[in-house]
């Protein structure tokens, strides 16, 4: 009897509830569209005939598909070098940040450490103040890290936010695990490598994702630090420069002029096609990685929220 009544109630949703449902589905469909379509629009334009694209004909699906934009993008001087720098700083920087965060997160959970709380506070405090860009730049100059690849990597190694994440995670692991290993005669390093590392892998994955995205997206440090050695420009900076050079970049990529006129119009690079192609190249790694690692991002922000 009661069951039937409950069921009936579900069927006869009030008018307001139905409106709410409709509103939510429509609203979030629009939100999803607004977040996804710009990327889709740019992508289909890079693989469509460039003359159609220039006329604004490519809105929902690609027409006259060709991949010449990508081919010639690799001919743009400096782009390949910039991609190399971006990949290198992402790989090396991520390894550095993840290792340091794992190690420090573990070490700062060692209550026996001499003045542990003081050191921890000194590290965490750096989240909340900033000397400013000029003092930072001058420091980097003193350390010979301007116009130097390591200037991208070294300052990012000790990252307080990621240390908080790992430390919180380490503290959620039963203390007995470490104690048992220590009774068996394991030193602190053995405990870290043999006992702790396998257990904290999930949080290391989270930190790795955050760190990699930060490195890949980093723009400001390159803008400040690279004053003369343009070979060290990462992709982000190169993309920014291309966006600001408007039409003069056309000359960069148009080297071939062999094909017939009609075909040429479809595949000749325009300033817009070059910009869009570079945009896709820069955004693609994130797009490909993101859906698979989303749960790690979410986990990270939730742990971070518990202990900020």
């Amino acid at each position: 009897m009661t069951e039937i009544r409950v069921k009936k109630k579900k069927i006869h949703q009030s008018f307001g509830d139905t409106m709410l449902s409709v509103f939510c589905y429509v609203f979030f469909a629009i939100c999803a569209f607004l977040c996804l379509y710009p990327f889709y629009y740019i992508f289909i334009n890079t693989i469509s005939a460039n003359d159609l694209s220039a006329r604004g004909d490519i809105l929902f699906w690609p027409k006259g598909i060709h991949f010449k934009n990508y081919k010639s993008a690799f001919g743009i001087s400096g782009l390949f070098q910039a991609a190399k720098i971006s990949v290198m700083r992402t790989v090396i920087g991520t390894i550095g940040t993840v290792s340091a965060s794992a190690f420090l997160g573990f070490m700062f959970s060692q209550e026996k450490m001499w003045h542990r709380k003081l050191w921890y506070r000194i590290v965490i405090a750096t989240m909340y103040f900033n000397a400013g860009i000029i003092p930072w730049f001058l420091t980097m100059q003193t350390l010979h890290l301007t116009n130097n690849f390591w200037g991208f990597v070294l300052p990012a190694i000790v990252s307080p936010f990621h240390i908080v994440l790992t430390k919180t995670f380490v503290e959620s692991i039963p203390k007995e695990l470490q104690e048992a290993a220590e009774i068996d005669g394991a030193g602190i390093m053995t405990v870290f490598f043999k006992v702790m590392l396998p257990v904290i892998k999930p949080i290391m994955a989270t930190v790795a994702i955050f760190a990699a995205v930060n490195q890949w997206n980093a723009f400001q440090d390159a803008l400040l630090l690279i004053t003369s050695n343009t070979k060290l420009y990462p992709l982000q900076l190169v993309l920014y420069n291309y966006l600001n050079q408007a039409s003069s970049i056309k000359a960069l990529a148009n080297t071939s002029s062999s094909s017939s006129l009609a075909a040429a119009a479809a595949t000749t690079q325009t300033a817009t096609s070059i910009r869009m192609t570079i945009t896709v190249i820069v955004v693609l790694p994130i797009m490909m990685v993101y859906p698979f690692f989303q749960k790690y991002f979410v986990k990270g922000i939730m742990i971070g929220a518990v202990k900020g």
Partner: protein
Amino acid sequence: MFKKIDKKKWYSIKLFLFIVPFLVLVVLFSYYPLYGWMYAFYDYKPPKPLSEAPFVGVKWFKFMVENPVRVEQLKQVLINTFVMSGITLSTSWIPMLFAVFMNELHRVRFRKFVQTVTTLPNFISWVLVYSVAYNIFNSDGMVNSLLVDKWHLIQEPILFLQDSSHVWLTQWLWLTWKNLGWAAIMYIAAISSIDEELFQAAKVDGATRMQQIRYITIPSLLPTFFVLLMMNIGNFLSNGMEQYYVFQNAFNKEYIQVLDLYVYTLSTVKGGYPLSVAVSMLKSVVSVILLVVANGISKLTRGESFL
């Protein structure tokens, strides 16, 4: 007995020694730069070293409030910073509502899809956001080519990106586009931790979904909202420079310059180092005070600090 204590002490110091290299990095990259605040008190002109620069005391600080051109500039920069941070602060309830309504999507796959897609913009850089903006709103971008060439609604393309009268609003919109989904995640997590029985009980009492939102979901999210609000207050002066740097151009310059960007711009001007340091120094000090005050409010009203 003594030996035993020594051993313990030695072990605790050994643990400390392991982290020393990392502490050195922290000191080098985060604390040592503070020494650079000295430059605000000298007439420093690179590449000459600081030791050769004349000490000028608080000249640059006075300069900020006495030189009429600078005063005007600084005033505008402060207005920009306050308005844009103010808009962000006063709309910080939007992510909460976003999460609340997202929770009303009962088709799990659609909800997951929406969540994934709306958090995506948070993970692309500001340069890429600008690139998206450029490709869509530029004079030969998507919107203009539709309006001018395709639908013949207007004759001349609208220069969205050069527009200077709605900079504050458009910058807020871009910021929201980038951050909204991600900011909502914190609330989504908080919603999932609400006791399911509350909703069951409300349903038995005949509460509509709107009433459940109003009397259960939103009140349980308020603590989270409060903490985030306080953090926002702590960051009031720190909008970061990247967003405004990439979006700035000759036309919107006046209204887009926030403090962080102004500090950078000053540093690129010849001989602007000391003034830039002086401004950023004041900014840092005020920021820390704001943070401490916000933390104090949080402690007083809710009994917990977020620092």
